[in-house]
Every structure is written in structure tokens, then in C-alpha cells.
């Protein structure tokens, strides 16, 4: 163990690693939010609750069906994404003509309902979820101890984020999506089923949140309020990054996670608030966000 800036390397790299992990979740969640906002012009306040639902789905699958982590990675996003589509069909589509505020209030209400129902059934403390057997243990890299599972989280989230970016920015389907965001009427005139795309996009965004939830389950305990505090930080991330670009959301998420990790090492008391402070600064200097277009 050597020292950097007077700190043992293990502490520094350990916190940076934790920061990258938080950053992975920030990136995944702000990506989902950005995708949903781009298509529906709705801020999905229930994103945090859907993240929590993903984690709980994994937990329940294990408890009652013996279905493990790897299958849950696929099943949970689909299940929670389906509930998302249900929400969109039942509630959100009626609000499309109204002030976006109502969408925010509705999803806020849904978040309360979901969190309340889970809290009633499972109490406020967390349920344990085991790290999958293949990823248990860790490696001693000399300058730090690297748990295997946490390394996996970073690699996998990065892959998912880049794949999503590729799908939206470089494929044909993605181009329809982007066009529909700009001018839905014209795109419909081309014969593309815009309402269906909107619905599926919401489902996809929700599924991303649920995926993040499954990945979070072994690290954090699966508890009903795991989403609500996280989602506010993600809002700040989104404001900093600006909702103009997908890549912007990804980069900002990871970067802010790193910044938070660094702050924990050098100035631990500020670690909770550093992201919000950065948001305040960005608002003063560049109100549209680092990667955003002016609103």
C-alpha cells in the first residue's frame, strides 16, 4: 500500500471505485429519465420507485421461485417495464395535452403509492440479497482490494449505457425516435406509429431503471425507500448534464459519481451535497446544462 496525497492508496482507490459504482447508477437512471423526457416531455418521478421495483422483483424471484441473479437481470426489466407500459396507457397518455407539471405530479403520486405499498408489506428495513456465486469474493490488486461484483457492476452499466446510446444515435429505429421527439406530427405523416413508439419508449426507460435496481440489490439492501433519495440526486445530475444528449447524460452520471467519491476521501462531510453544489454552479455559469441545448 503506497500513499497518494497523504492518504493510503487503498482508501483513495476504494472510494473512487465506490464513486464509479454510484456513477453507474446515476448514469443508468439519468439515461432512462432523459429517454423518457425526450419522448414524452414528462419527468418520471416514479423512476426511483421503478428502480426499487426492479430490485424487489429480483428479491422476490429468488425467494419464491428460486430464480437467481442472472435470470433476474433479464426478467425484472421486462416485468417492471410492462408495468410502466400499463401506467403509460392508463394514466400518462391522458395528460399529454396538459401542462407537463401534471405529469410530474401524477408520477410523484404513483411513486408514493408504490413506495407505500412496498413499505406496508416489507417494512422499512432492507431485505438481504446475496451476491451471485460466480461474482463473490474479490481480488487484492496490491494498491486496493477490488470486490468482483462491484467491478462487474461498472463494466455492465457502461456496456448498457453505450449500447443504448448506439441504439438511439446510430440505428434507424433510434433515428425515428429522435425525429418523433422533434416533430411527432411529421413523423406520423410518414406512417410511423408514433403513439406506440412513445409507449414502448416509456417501457424501455422504466426497464432501464429496473435493470439498475437488480444490479443494486446485492450491494445495497433491497428496501422500499432505496429509490426515493437516489432519484433526487439523479434529478440534479440531469440538470447538470442537460437533457439534450444521451452521451451527455452518461458522461455526467459517471463523472459526478467520481467527484462524489473523491469528495468522500478529502472532505467527507460534503459528500452528500457536492453534486447539488455543482448543480448550483453550473446553473450560474451555463444554465442550459453542460451538454444541453438552451430551453
Amino acid at each position, binding site marked *: 500500500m503506497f500513499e497518494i496525497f497523504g492518504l493510503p492508496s487503498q482508501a483513495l482507490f476504494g472510494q473512487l471505485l465506490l464513486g464509479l459504482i454510484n456513477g453507474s447508477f446515476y448514469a443508468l437512471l439519468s439515461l432512462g429519465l432523459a429517454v423518457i423526457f425526450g419522448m414524452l416531455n414528462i419527468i418520471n418521478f416514479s423512476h426511483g420507485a421503478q428502480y426499487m421495483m426492479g430490485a424487489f422483483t429480483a428479491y422476490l424471484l429468488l425467494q419464491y421461485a428460486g430464480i437467481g441473479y442472472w435470470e433476474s437481470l433479464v426478467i425484472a426489466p421486462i416485468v417492471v417495464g410492462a408495468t410502466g407500459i400499463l401506467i403509460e396507457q392508463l394514466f400518462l397518455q391522458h395528460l399529454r395535452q396538459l*401542462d407537463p407539471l401534471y405529469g410530474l405530479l401524477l408520477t410523484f403520486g*404513483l411513486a408514493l403509492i408504490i413506495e407505500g405499498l412496498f413499505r*406496508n408489506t416489507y417494512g422499512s428495513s432492507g431485505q438481504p440479497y446475496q451476491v451471485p456465486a460466480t461474482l463473490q469474493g474479490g481480488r487484492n490488486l496490491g494498491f486496493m482490494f477490488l470486490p468482483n461484483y462491484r467491478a462487474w457492476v461498472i463494466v455492465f452499466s457502461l456496456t448498457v449505457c453505450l449500447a443504448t446510446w448506439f441504439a438511439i444515435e446510430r440505428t434507424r429505429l433510434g433515428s425515428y425516435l429522435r425525429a418523433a421527439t422533434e416533430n411527432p406530427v411529421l413523423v406520423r405523416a410518414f406512417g410511423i406509429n408514433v403513439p406506440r413508439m412513445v409507449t414502448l419508449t416509456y417501457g424501455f426507460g422504466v426497464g432501464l431503471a429496473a435493470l439498475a435496481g437488480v444490479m443494486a440489490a446485492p450491494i445495497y439492501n433491497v428496501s422500499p425507500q432505496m429509490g426515493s433519495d437516489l432519484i*433526487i*440526486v439523479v434529478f440534479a445530475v440531469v440538470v447538470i448534464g442537460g437533457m439534450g444528449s444521451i452521451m451527455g447524460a452518461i458522461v455526467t452520471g459517471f463523472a459526478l459519481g467520481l467527484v462524489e467519491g473523491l469528495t468522500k476521501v478529502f472532505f467527507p462531510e460534503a459528500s452528500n451535497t457536492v453534486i447539488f453544489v455543482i448543480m448550483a454552479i453550473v*446553473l450560474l455559469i451555463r*444554465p442550459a446544462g453542460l451538454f444541453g441545448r438552451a*430551453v
Partner: protein
Amino acid sequence: MTEGTLDTAAMPQRRETPRSLSVAFAVTVVLLVAAPFVVYPVFLMKALCFALFACAFNLLIGYVGLVSFGHALYFGWASYLAAHAAKVWALPPELAIVVGTATAAVLGFVAGGLAIRRQGIYFAMITLALAQMMYFFALQAKFTGGEDGIQGVPRGWLFGVFDLSQEMTMYLFVLIVTLAGFLFIYRIINSPFGEVLKAIRENEHRVISLGYKTERYKLVAFVLSATLAGLAGSMKALVFQLASLTDVHWSMSGEVVLMTLVGGLGTIFGPLVGAFAIVAMENYLAPFGQWVLVIQGVIFVICVLVFRRGIVGEIANMLRVQL
């Protein structure tokens, strides 16, 4: 331009106070003066503090069209400062309340200055994020007492004359302050300044083209709203003799949105009715613990989907009066 605007029960303005409002106000005062003899006064005081809080919030959302999702920041921090002033600095209650309210005004100025830079949804998210930042600050600051909060806040003697530890005296004080705040908000809304605010809500660009500096108007409205929310928070600290993290948590911000929504956005009496309704509901449902959260959510969803005018809004619509 009904697409981008909020549903409010606003009817054409008239110069003098409509009779419906005067009647409603008289009824309210009578009920509130008689109530403590029948209902538990502490419950009523809680409802009154929240009513003022909701009225302050309504000023921003109902009349300027700005959604602040972080109003707990002003409510909670005013509560902390008032509690600290009364307990540690041993200030009399009226000065403690002034300290708390002034804190909220300053915080409102700073937060408003930052948030006003963006519109609509971004504005809401920024207010939420700023409130959360101050929540974490409250969690860690020594003087707020963290999870313990500031306990044992003395109620003291108002102006050195009135003993506020007597429930009825305290109730009268809270009632008078709440009604004063309520009337003050009414005065703001029905002034030339208020007309500009309402115009900004309808179509900001047109107002700019008329030569008004809308940013300034919005900031002033924001600060006024924050100050009155702070007044409510300071009183609450004295009523319950406790200031805690609950007051700065985002769920408190959500509750005031709920109260205003249920009562009726943009109506005068809406926030009052909404506050009483929600506080009563929470009281009644307290034994059911976590169901309160679910029911709050359900009310949100129902209000947004089918009940956008709120209780007072629906009544006003039915009777075709202004409330």
C-alpha cells in the same frame, strides 16, 4: 393558450371584493374561533400552520405558475432558526419568529435567484435539488441536532405579556398570524403587482414584450412565498416545541403540493381547506402507519386525472362564484 397553462378556477376579476369571498372569510373566522372548544387545539394549530404554508405555496403555483418542489427548505429552516433563537438565544417568541421568517426570506432570495434561471420542469427539479442539498446540510450541522432535532423549545411570553404555554392563548396567536398572512396574500394577488404575476402565468413572452422585467417579478413573488412559508415554519416550531429533520425533508415539500392540489390550485380558500383536509386525514389514519403514504399517492393521482380544480375549485365552479 390553454395548452400550456394550469387549470385554475380563476374567474374574471372585479374591482371590489366579491361577496362570495367576504362571506367565505366570515364563515372561516367564525368556525376557527369556535373550533378549539370542540376540537383538540394542538391539531387545529398544526392545521393552521400548514394552511399558511399551503397559502404561501399557492401564491407561487396558482398565481405565478411556478412549481416549487422544494418549499420545505424555507418551512424547515425557518423552523430550525426560530427554535434555536427561542431556546439557545432565549429570545421572546415574537423575535424568534422574526428570526425564522427572515432566514426563510434570505434562503428564498438565494434559491429563487438560482432557480428562476430555468423554466417549467427544470425549475421544479432545481428547487427540489436545492432543498435536498439543504436537507443534507441540516442532517450534518451541529445546531440542528441531526436526527434528534431541536427539542424542548420554550414557547415563552408573547410581548412579555401573554403566556403562550396556555393552549388557548397560543391558539389565538397562531390564528391571528395565519389570518394576517392569508389576508396579506390576498392583498398581493389583488394588487397591480399581482396582476402582472397572473399575466406572467398566462403568457410570459407577451408580458416581456410589454416591457416588464419578468425575472424580477418572479423573484419577488418567490421571496414572498418563501418568507410566508418561513412564518408558518417558525410558528410550528413554537407550537410543537420541536424542530426536526421531517420539516426539511422532500416529503414535506410533496405534502404542501398535495394540500394545495386537493384544496384547489389558484383559489383563495383552496390551500386552507386542503391543509385541514390532509392534516385531518393523516391524523385519522395514523394508526394505519404506512397506508398514509399510499393514500396520499392515490389522492395525487385522482386529483391530477379527474379532480384538477380541487375541493374549493369544484365548489366555486358549481356555485359559479369566486372562492
